[in-house]
């Protein structure tokens, strides 16, 4: 290999400062993506960051490599076409919980079912940051947001379980506090054939933190340290204790052919059949 890349080659330094608030977790995840790409020595023209709408959606403004930013929630549907046209492009979909779990949940479930070859990295800050801190599907019940001033009346959703059930090759969860794990999960996600899903708990001190008196960014990071448990420890907890903690770790890791490979194999079988009808 003639060129060699460091994480700095993937960041558009001239575009900084970024628009994210001080203490926001998204920058850490973006650096994790850049470090993973450098570690895997993926040339910038063979990498694509695909984002949606919201704070995390701006990630593409701060990178040197290929960028796609779609409409709200639709990123994985766009990625389906990109993946077919460019099967050797490493697609990293960096999406928010509002974008991917509310308006985009349909596309996420179907992308996981098809096992689209995409690394889905979710910046789960448990609310809609960009629009002023409204509740999202991952906002815990009874917590305060700008649209749940008396406590959110709805329960939250565990998308790791949904995506695992739908058929993704790799499902994991971590936080922006666990940076070494974050970096290794992103790397695994990029290297996985099929859909890999990494949910990253990420503080939004500006809205979710402020509304719920969770302290400043440092306090919120401390919470990520203290209130999370490795998956195997978490599973041993009695039921009533589980509510107080988040698990982090790998939930699913399996070998499953990705959607485009599957489709291309099908087309090849058809062509070998001289274009006739398949029985």
């Amino acid at each position, binding site marked *: 290999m003639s060129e060699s890349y460091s994480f700095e080659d993937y960041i*558009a330094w001239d575009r900084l400062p970024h628009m994210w608030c001080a203490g926001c977790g998204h920058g850490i995840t973006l650096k994790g993506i850049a470090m993973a790409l450098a570690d895997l020595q993926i040339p910038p023209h063979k990498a694509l960051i695909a984002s949606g709408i919201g704070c995390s959606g701006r990630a593409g403004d701060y990178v040197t490599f290929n960028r796609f930013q779609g*409409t709200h929630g639709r990123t994985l549907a766009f990625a389906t076409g990109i993946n077919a046209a460019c099967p050797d492009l490493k697609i990293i979909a960096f999406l928010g919980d509002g974008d991917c779990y509310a308006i985009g949940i349909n596309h996420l479930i179907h992308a996981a079912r098809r096992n689209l070859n995409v690394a889905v990295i979710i910046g789960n800050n448990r609310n809609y940051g960009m629009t002023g801190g409204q509740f999202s599907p991952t906002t815990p019940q009874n917590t305060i947001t700008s649209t749940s001033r008396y406590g959110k009346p709805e329960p939250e959703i565990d998308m790791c379980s949904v995506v695992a059930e739908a058929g993704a090759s790799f499902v994991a969860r971590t936080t922006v506090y666990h940076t070494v794990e974050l970096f290794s999960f992103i790397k695994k996600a990029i290297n996985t054939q099929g859909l890999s899903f990494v949910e990253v708990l990420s503080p939004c001190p500006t809205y979710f933190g402020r509304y719920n008196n969770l302290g400043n960014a440092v306090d919120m990071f401390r919470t990520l340290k203290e209130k999370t448990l490795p998956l195997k420890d978490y599973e041993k907890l009695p039921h009533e204790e589980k509510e107080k903690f988040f698990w982090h770790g790998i939930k699913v890791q399996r070998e499953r052919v990705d959607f485009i490979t599957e489709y291309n194999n099908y087309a090849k079988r058809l062509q070998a059949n001289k274009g006739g009808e398949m029985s």
Partner: protein
Amino acid sequence: MRQIFVQGNEACGLGAIAAGAKFFAGYPITPASELAEFCSKEMPKVGGYYFQMEDELASIAAVIGASLGGLRSFTATSGPGMSLMQENLGFAILAEVPCVIINVQRFGPSTGVATRPGQADIMQARWGTHGDHTIIALAPASVQECYDLTIEAFNLAERFSTPVILLSDGALAHLREKISVYDDGELEITPRSAPEIEPEKYLPYRPNEKGVPHLSPYGNRHILRVTSLIHDEKGYSTANPTTARCQLERLETKITGYQEELPQAKCYGSKNPDAVVISFGISARAARQAVHFLNNDNFEIGMMDLKTIWPFPEKNIQEYCSQAEKVFVVEMNRGQLTGEVERILPGLEVIPVLRADTQVISPQEIIEKIKEVLR
């Protein structure tokens, strides 16, 4: 060329394949389903893709994604699906992504009468997605034109780097006619490739002298940045008022400045008509028949069968109608195109000849209406 006997929907599919389409994503809907079925059979045979998506939002999104990867891509739908596609149609316009959307119009609004034709998506094609924008929309009036204009739609999408809508309808979609089609490989297609400029100097949204950018397919050494936000030439988002204004202006003028390159109306009947009939799509068939009959009956009537609906061919219509006193607009809706004709022909008497009851308009009722006015 060879001759075949096919229905309108199949002709669109055949046209797409002849134009080098390699990607179709869609969702089942009446009366466009035959197009999806055709693509599911034919696309894999030509090394292309047929993806059946979870809805129409995803269908057009996948089409846009595939196009950004360099594949000629399209989808087909009808009213309710077209409504869902408006969101990402706007994306394709702003991000300047070539793609083709075939709207096999049915009777609406809402689910309407799913199995019956309509021509009431004219204004939706023009203004369905939010924000200022310009769109190219073509209207075939025969099965042959379903084939020809689909090919044309793909070429225009690349030429202008923009989505192109083909407005078919439920009657045309299921009409069977003998048409001429290209033999395999007879039509030469140059797929979109990386630009010649060095990758380091490439700016994805720097327009050429005609105002059109060259989007290098993803995966080439030329880095491509695409966003739904107003963006600079590098493809980074910006809220700069000058950039925003210039971008909107260019999205319009890159098309309206070159209207002569779009399919021109077909004109029939008297050379210096006192009265003109303007129509498009399936109604133009009935109108043409009516004009032919009236000419034989010594009425000095001419007719324009519009091939390009949007941008509206104002100058051509104004020129053609310069000697006329009365203009009849024949369409299967409650007067959507009539309003446009009135707007561009102030002082002329514009008479709508409409039918909006799920049935195809007949030559007889057009003749009766015209005679009633001209006598």
